[in-house]
């Protein structure tokens, strides 16, 4: 990890390591160790977000004018790597990597001033209200609608799979403000800065791992102010698409994340018997699977670095963000699968209580292996959310095969 660094990153890395060492307390580290999906344990992660903000480091990829640290791409990458190596929780992406960049691009000065500081500081958590029961892959067919009535809009309909809505105090969502025309027309992108509104109900959904992560959100005559639109009314689709590119291409660094997962598997393999008196790490089949994944991660890394330098919204960036999404998420799933295969049957133990941050239920078996199965289960979603792998392939095909 360090060999390709140019020398002046050594100091930078040391500063990052020192800061984490000082600032990340036990609870934050525990949250990092107990992160089993793209969505780390909420409260300690937001606390870590605020601590990073106090240091000026909560949004490595944001431009300086909005509070980013002004780091080079290499520094951002080094920062991600150090954070992953220290196993602190990754920050939640909805604000920093999704709606934040969209507000910078499409927001009025008033909107920027109203929303960006809270996203940067971690004072506010935004949840993403795109999907609906009947509008998943076909997002443009969404039917949650907002009608102008006097000096406000009235929203009716529902959203689903809304990650961490039960923790959120803000929500960005897509609503239909005009019927007729192409499905992409008449959609508006709303910013809701208060979820505590009459008619708005949030119901958590229990996931495969037995814990709530996504939610259903119901709107029954929910009134919101007329200045809720980000971008033009009825032109929310452009905003939505821009945001999706950020979501897919990972302003977060997948490669750093995946290398940590591989390091974790390697540690387990060194200690795990192969059933014949040796250890798994010496087994050629294990070695082959492991090294193949190291190769896959190297490709994710290389493409990600290329993508980071691209102007989002340019003709190449859309398909490339789809390509990263496919490659990275499918690689992650294979990594998670190797992890359960490496741990073996002890991964079958259901350990919901032990996985809660602050729990006094001790893990059964090695604490290192606690997260392997929840990750395997939860990350099956990685090829579904943010546009499924099938949808990403459709997007690339459209460009690649264009006449």
């Amino acid at each position, binding site marked *: 990890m360090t060999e390709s660094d140019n020398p002046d990153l050594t100091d930078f890395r040391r500063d990052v390591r020192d800061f984490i060492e000082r600032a990340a307390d036990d609870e934050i580290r525990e949250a990092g160790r107990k992160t089993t999906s793209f969505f780390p344990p909420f409260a300690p992660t937001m606390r870590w977000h605020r601590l990073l903000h106090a240091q000026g480091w909560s949004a490595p990829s944001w431009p300086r004018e909005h509070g980013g640290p002004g780091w080079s791409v290499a520094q951002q990458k080094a920062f991600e790597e150090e954070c992953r190596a220290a196993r602190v929780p990754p920050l939640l992406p909805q604000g920093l990597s999704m709606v934040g960049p969209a507000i910078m691009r499409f927001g009025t000065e008033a909107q920027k001033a109203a929303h960006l500081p809270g996203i940067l500081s971690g004072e506010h958590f935004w949840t993403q209200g795109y999907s609906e029961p009947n509008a998943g892959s*076909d997002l443009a067919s969404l039917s949650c609608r907002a009608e102008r009535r006097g000096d406000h809009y009235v929203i009716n309909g529902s959203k689903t799979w809304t990650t961490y809505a039960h923790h959120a105090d803000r929500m960005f969502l897509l609503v239909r403000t005009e019927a007729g025309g192409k499905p992409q027309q008449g959609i508006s992108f709303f910013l809701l800065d208060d979820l505590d509104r009459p008619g708005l109900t949030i119901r958590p959904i229990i996931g*495969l791992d037995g814990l709530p992560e996504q939610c259903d959100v119901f709107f029954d005559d929910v009134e919101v102010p007329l200045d809720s639109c980000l971008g033009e009314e009825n032109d929310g689709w452009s905003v939505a698409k821009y945001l999706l590119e950020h979501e897919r291409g990972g302003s977060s660094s997948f490669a750093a994340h995946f290398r940590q997962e591989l390091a974790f598997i390697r540690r387990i393999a060194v200690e795990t018997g192969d059933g014949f008196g040796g250890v798994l790490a010496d087994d050629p089949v294990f070695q082959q699977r492991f090294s193949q994944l190291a190769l896959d991660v190297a490709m994710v890394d290389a493409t990600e670095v290329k993508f980071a330098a691209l102007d989002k919204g340019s003709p190449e960036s859309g398909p490339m963000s789809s390509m990263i999404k496919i490659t990275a998420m499918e690689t992650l799933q294979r990594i998670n699968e190797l992890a359960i295969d490496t741990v073996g049957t002890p991964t*079958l133990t259901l350990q919901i209580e032990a996985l809660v941050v602050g729990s006094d239920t001790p893990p059964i078996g090695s604490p290192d292996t606690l997260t392997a199965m929840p990750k395997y289960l939860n990350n099956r*979603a990685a090829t579904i*959310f943010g546009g499924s792998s099938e949808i990403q392939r459709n997007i690339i095909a459209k460009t690649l095969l264009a006449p």
Partner: protein
Amino acid sequence: MSSLSAEMRAMLDDSVDKFLRDHYSFDARRAQVESVSGYAPDHWQQFAELGWLGIPFAEDDGGLGGTVTDTLGLMRRFGRALVVEPYLGVVGLAGQAIANSANTDLKASLLPGLIAGEILPVLAWEETRSRGNPAYVETRAQPTAEGWQIDGEKITVLNAPQATHVVVSARSAGNAVDDDGIELFVVAVDTPGVTVEGFATVDGHRAGRVYFDAVAVTPEQRLNNDGEGGVLLGRAIDAGCLMLAAEAIGAMETLLDKTIAYTQTRKQFGMPIAGFQVLQHRMVDMYIALTNAENLFEQTVAEHGGQATMPAPAAALLKAGISQSARYIGQQAIQLHGGIGMTDELDVGHYFKRLTALSLLFGGVDTHLKRYWRATAA
């Protein structure tokens, strides 16, 4: 092969279908999974009354006079309904170790109770470092004046928290990796020195770690003759693999059916998603994975089901093949359902989790492919 008549087997299959239809809705199953015991003891009693617990045991022992092969129709149906009762662990693994035992007194003292549903013996063979190889045994059986003293730790003991007895493998001689020197003892769970750390598993079943601390056993508690423990254990696990394969096929066929049905009703972009060619091909690949596994299973049963010991290469390839198909079909079923497949509410995720467990139990793909190589390398 099967030793029950075709009529008898058809009757059994019908009775299983009827029972599951009447008592095993997904909601009823969920209530059982969430209960303290993790299964329904009254179901178990009905299994006994219906004769199911006696299928693979000799009539002299109080059974129906069938073989493991005769349980496969039931196991396949259990797979379709995601049954959580401890049939595989009790009637399969432990039951087969006992049924094939040379210790006729011990057998006679246990089988009637097992068949009547009064005792639940389970098999404790896996260890931290054994990785699907039953011959890898670190647990010691140190000879004493009265018999042996057992010390060691077993992991992933299926149905351990529900058990009344544990059939445990322990080594009286040799090193952990030797094929020889393995003994099988039956120990009541309330014996001093036996500790069961029970837990739920991700697939809604129960298992546990079992610790043996200076547990005294006598020759009356030993299932095997001198030098035959390893073979007896291997036979029980291969029988378990066959039953597991049947269950996996049941779960896979249901999951494929559910996926086809869902994609035909779920509409996106103005049409059923089953209309997208990429999903059609995926479902065809799921079908191929299922059908090949099923054919291999049927052929393996036809060729080796009746033999006392399944040849290791055939047993290894069957488990590897079933595990591969289970993974693929489970993963793709989730993928094709989209977000709804990731929820606890829908049964699809529960099939996926059971198939994940079945792919890991008794050794996964890599372990069995390695076993194949070792068994065929001259």
